């Protein structure tokens, strides 16, 4: 059984008592435990079920590479699936549940899949669920959806109660990994003043060194780590962050760091995660190495663990996986585990060493402790179900004929080590195959390069393939100094610390154990625990022609999901290489992509949630609208009142009331969101002639003109009223959504095409609150406010004037988007609300009625005015909309003019704008198509037009619409059929003039 020893555990505080639950059962642990170490301490070997076969699974590893011990953490609003127990720090009240089982972890129905295992081979889904076709939708997919997925998604109705944030950090050197290599690299870079940031994914500095032994400058590694961290902490130019993972390396020195601030202590206030968005001149990755499993039958049974993990649990937490541990290895390092176990008073019945000649000094040390060592031997298979009960030993050479069975309750395996090269590879760093160590290591000749074309990532320590203390520290020192130099500084010439460790003899690459394992053994030799991929699956894929490692990955699912093959990759591709009869480097690796391990969606979103999820733009009058019950309409980032429903009033009724009140007496609109761009300079007129389809240079100061703007490809992009302020100055109104876009459009042409023209622009949109006073009583209201002449002689239609109203400095534009007598009044924004209040107060005698965007839309539609975004959709040219009057014939050029002469643009068959009136008075569905006789090449009904705007007109008491219709203007009075959303119901509409109301303009010209 797994348990905690009476003594030992350098990371746990034995005086502490921490309570937690797993699958509802209460357990106790210590401060410093991970969830994995605490579960093992409580003999909870079984932690989950595998993805496909629902096989019982236990903890395999002790760090980020763990494929099995994935749990649901928390509950309700803090529920999170797929959390690795090995990197989850224990805290009081932690609640975890296991995944992939039903009805319970111990008795799982899905485990029956294993009985059919021989049918669930590589590509099973692709092969099986293809025929018969209709089965997919009704039988296969529902079944697969039921049984697929890792963990349980959080309830969509809950909201994450935690907060998150981003942090932008700029440094000379960022060091990823706080083991001895990372610390030494940081020190070497920082000694001469470089600004250094060190990130360590765990809560502890030093990495594996304190567990693995040796000496540094005569000290135990732990002592050296403490001393070095202390020195770094004392340096102003160094920042140290634990619980911070280097998640990804991107272009131009960009690094994402993932700091977990409160996961280990949820009672702490403040952000849960912080995403570090780092820009570094140089990046040093000291991310260590990950031990590889060995592929033998039953290597997934709970109790089979990585040898390094067995050692970690013993040394760091005083926890053991079993009382009797068989060690199986192809290298010297695993002997450290055997020695540590033996020294802790535990039984190590045997070390099974695949090498004929065995190992070096560490083997001798193990032997001297009385440990039996069997060389040239292998594990044929592991015995046991939900936990290990023994191992069958065989010769390494051969198919697996059992020589002996050894009783044990744990197996510590080591297939050698693989450098963690992920970060190096993220941004294009290439790898080279190291024959001696049987691993891929970074090829410094093919480093990722930055904006200057020079390398910006250095890998060091065991991540760089240096596997003993001495070379790790020398390499790290060199990496620190060279990165300092590359970042533009001069490193100091301190000598590196001296590391000493036991010398090791080479490993023997082992990709399958025993060498020629029989079929039934290979079918139980797991490569990828998380995705249930076995040696036999990869071999099958190879036989079926999957030669590319990327294809094999997708076909077999090897190395997918949350662990991205941290344990399985090398073993898998070595198996593939062997099956294809190729060398490993020829097969290559799959692509390493960020993040290194999954990061939370919350961290990615950062502060962007709740009220700051995205900016909401508010006019100076926003608070009034809010107070008066406005129903909002988002327009770009703005919020505009859609209408102001009164008590018990529907939106439709509110719009109806607002339109009639405006038409009959006096309406009021907050038009502050309209763009206002100042265009000034001796060439301003010439410039606007190029921007607008009509002539602006002839406009007289004091007057306004409606204008259309097209893009260079001819399509209508914006419209608005231009006012000429003086000889050199124009003010261009844009649509609400167009202000920033049109200002940018102007600057683009001025800066990049006509840079010798003397024109300056300024986007003054937000300088003014703009209020439209609309209706037959509009002039009376302004006269009541007093201060300037707003009569028809002084301020005729399409004129503007500066002055004061009720003591406010104003600019009044006599323009109309409703067909009514109308003034748009601009006041400085800081006075906007006060001026609005003044108008509301003064307008009471005419029942002044604020109206929203919908009433605005209805009134403009009644007048046949187009709306950008309704009548236009990026494919419509002004000529389609009957706006020929606004297109200058005299101008040689304007943006879009050339495009409008292209054959398709000049085609008389383009649909043209008309008004539409339903025969029965109903409102046409928005976007509805008018059908025509016959079908097109795809068998769809032909069309002859579509609705672009449609409303109920309170003024006329019936439905009105505008639309684009084939030869529309020539078909006045004709009735054509529109089709409702159901695709069948016909609504008949008559083609009419788009100007439904006051065609002579008598109401606005008073």
């Amino acid at each position, binding site marked *: 059984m797994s348990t905690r020893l009476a003594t030992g555990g350098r990371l746990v505080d034995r005086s502490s008592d921490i309570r937690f639950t797993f699958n509802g059962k209460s357990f106790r642990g210590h401060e410093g435990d991970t969830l994995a170490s605490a579960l093992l301490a409580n003999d909870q070997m079984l932690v989950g079920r595998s993805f496909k076969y629902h096989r019982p699974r236990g903890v395999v590893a002790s760090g980020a590479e763990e494929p099995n011990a994935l749990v649901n953490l928390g509950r309700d609003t803090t529920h999170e699936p797929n959390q690795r127990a090995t990197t989850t720090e224990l805290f009081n009240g932690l609640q975890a549940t296991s995944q992939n089982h039903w009805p319970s972890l111990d008795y799982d129905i899905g485990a029956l899949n294993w009985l059919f295992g021989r049918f669930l081979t590589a590509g099973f889904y692709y092969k099986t669920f293809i025929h018969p076709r209709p089965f997919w939708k009704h039988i296969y997919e529902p079944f697969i959806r039921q049984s697929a997925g890792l963990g349980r998604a959080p309830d969509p109705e809950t909201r994450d109660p935690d907060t998150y944030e981003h942090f932008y950090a700029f440094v000379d050197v960022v060091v990823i990994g706080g083991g001895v290599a990372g610390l030494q690299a940081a020190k070497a870079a920082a000694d001469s003043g470089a600004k250094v940031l060190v990130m360590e994914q765990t809560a502890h500095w030093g990495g594996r060194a304190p567990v693995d032994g040796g000496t540094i400058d005569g000290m135990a590694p732990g002592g050296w780590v403490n001393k070095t961290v202390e020195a770094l902490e004392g340096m102003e130019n160094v*920042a140290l962050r634990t619980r911070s993972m280097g998640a990804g390396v991107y272009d131009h020195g960009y690094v994402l760091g993932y700091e977990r601030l409160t996961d280990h202590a949820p009672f702490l206030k403040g952000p849960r995660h*912080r995403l570090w968005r780092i820009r570094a001149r140089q990046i040093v990755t000291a991310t260590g190495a990950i031990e590889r499993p060995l592929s033998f039958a039953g290597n997934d049974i709970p109790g089979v663990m990585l040898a390094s993990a067995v050692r970690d649990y013993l040394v760091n937490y005083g926890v053991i996986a079993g009382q009797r541990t068989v060690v199986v290895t192809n290298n010297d390092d695993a002997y450290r585990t055997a020695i540590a176990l033996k020294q802790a008073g535990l039984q190590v019945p045997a070390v099974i060493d695949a090498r004929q000649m065995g190992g070096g000094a560490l083997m001798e040390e193990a032997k001297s402790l009385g440990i039996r060592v069997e060389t040239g031997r292998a594990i044929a298979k592991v015995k046991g179900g939900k936990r290990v009960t023994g191992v069958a030993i065989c010769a390494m050479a051969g198919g697996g004929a059992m020589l002996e069975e050894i009783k044990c309750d744990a197996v510590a395996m080591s297939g050698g080590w693989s450098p963690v090269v992920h970060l190096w590879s993220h941004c294009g760093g290439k790898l080279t195959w190291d024959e001696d160590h049987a691993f891929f290591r970074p090829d410094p000749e093919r480093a990722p390069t930055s904006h200057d074309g020079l390398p910006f990532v250095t890998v060091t320590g065991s991540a760089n393939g240096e596997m003993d203390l001495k070379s790790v520290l020398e390499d790290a020192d060199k990496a620190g100094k060279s990165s300092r130099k590359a970042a533009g500084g001069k490193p100091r010439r301190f000598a590196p610390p001296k590391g000493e460790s036991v010398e090791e003899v080479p490993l023997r690459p082992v990709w399958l154990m025993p060498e020629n394992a029989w079929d039934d053994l290979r079918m139980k030799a797991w490569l990828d625990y998380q995705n249930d991929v076995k040696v036999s699956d990869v071999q099958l894929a190879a036989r079926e022609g999957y030669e590319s490692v990327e294809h094999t990955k997708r076909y077999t699912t090897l190395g997918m999901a949350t662990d991205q093959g941290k344990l399985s990759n090398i073993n898998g591709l070595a198996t593939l290489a062997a099956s294809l009869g190729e060398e490993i480097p020829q097969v290559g690796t799959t692509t390493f992509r960020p993040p290194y391990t999954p990061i939370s969606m919350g961290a990615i979103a950062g502060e962007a949630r709740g009220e700051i999820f995205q900016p909401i733009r508010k006019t100076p009058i926003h608070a009034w609208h809010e107070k008066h019950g406005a129903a909002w309409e988002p327009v770009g980032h703005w919020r505009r009142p859609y209408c102001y429903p009164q008590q018990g009033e529907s939106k439709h009724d509110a719009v109806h009331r607002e339109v009639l009140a405006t038409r009959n007496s006096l309406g009021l609109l907050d038009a502050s969101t309209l763009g206002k761009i100042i265009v000034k300079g001796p060439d301003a007129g010439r410039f606007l002639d190029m921007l607008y389809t009509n002539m602006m240079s002839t406009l007289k100061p004091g007057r306004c003109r409606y204008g259309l703007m097209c893009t260079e490809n001819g399509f209508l992009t914006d419209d608005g009223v231009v006012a000429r302020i003086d000889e050199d100055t124009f003010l261009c109104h844009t649509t609400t959504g167009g202000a920033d876009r049109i200002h940018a459009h102007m600057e683009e042409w001025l800066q990049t095409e006509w840079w010798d023209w003397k024109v300056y622009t300024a986007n003054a949109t*937000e300088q003014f609150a703009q209020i439209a006073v609309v209706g037959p009583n509009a002039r009376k209201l302004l006269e009541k406010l007093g201060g300037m002449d707003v009569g028809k002689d002084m301020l005729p239609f399409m004129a503007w004037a500066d002055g004061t109203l009720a003591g406010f400095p104003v600019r009044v534009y006599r323009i109309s988007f409703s067909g009514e007598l109308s003034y748009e009044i601009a006041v*400085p924004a*800081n006075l906007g609300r006060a001026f609005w209040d003044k108008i509301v107060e003064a307008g009471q005698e005419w029942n002044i009625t604020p109206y929203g965007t919908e009433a605005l839309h209805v009134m403009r539609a009644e007048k046949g005015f187009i709306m950008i975004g309704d009548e236009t959709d990026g494919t419509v040219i002004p000529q389609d909309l009957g706006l020929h009057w606004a297109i200058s014939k005299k101008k040689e050029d304007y943006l879009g003019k050339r495009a409008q002469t292209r054959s398709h643009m000049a085609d008389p068959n383009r649909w043209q704008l008309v008004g539409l009136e339903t025969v029965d008075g109903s409102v046409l569905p928005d976007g509805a198509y008018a059908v025509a006789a016959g079908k097109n090449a795809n068998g769809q009904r032909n069309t002859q037009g579509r609705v672009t705007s449609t409303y109920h007109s309170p003024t006329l008491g019936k439905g009105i619409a505008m639309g684009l219709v084939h030869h529309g203007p020539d078909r006045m009075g004709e009735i054509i059929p529109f089709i409702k959303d159901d695709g069948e119901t016909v609504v008949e509409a008559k083609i009419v003039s788009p100007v439904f109301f006051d065609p002579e303009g008598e109401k606005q010209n008073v």
Partner: protein
Amino acid sequence: MSDPVLPLGGAHYEGLADVRETGPQGMIALRGDLSDAGLQEAVTGLTGVPMPDMRGAQVMGESGLLWMSPDELLVLVPYRQAARARAQLAEALQGQHALVENVSDMRAMFRLRGTQVRDVLAKLAPVDFARDALPVGELRRTRFAQVAAGVWLSDDTTAQVFCFRSVAEYMFNLLRTAADPDAFVGFHTG
């Protein structure tokens, strides 16, 4: 006529930094030839501060000059004097190609104070806020989260931030969130 109303009425929050909406601040957008001696004389005479270099923020009290781009200054004057100052500048620049516009109402301004100011800013903008990278008196136009903004440090523990008026509330909430007292980072202060 009423008194000018700030977008947020002078909102205030105390956390890792003291965040306060300031203003009203008179602002005149000036586009023109910044190398022109007459222009330089006009703006320095009006504000009493020296002509800023590239990205410079020369500010004394309510007057100052912010270098916005190679052909744009933001001229700071007391709010009540903005209309007159605009007229004066326009007069002084008669005969040369320039744009002078009173934009005193279109922005919101915030002052952040405290030792953690640089850390608070670094949560929102992709900018190096270290002392040597953004020294006191240098303007950085950038984005704060999802909106355009400008920022300069007027002394080592005081930052001035401005953005468009319509997003004043968004900006204040950003700054307040970044200045959460429980969200200490300690990167720039060590």
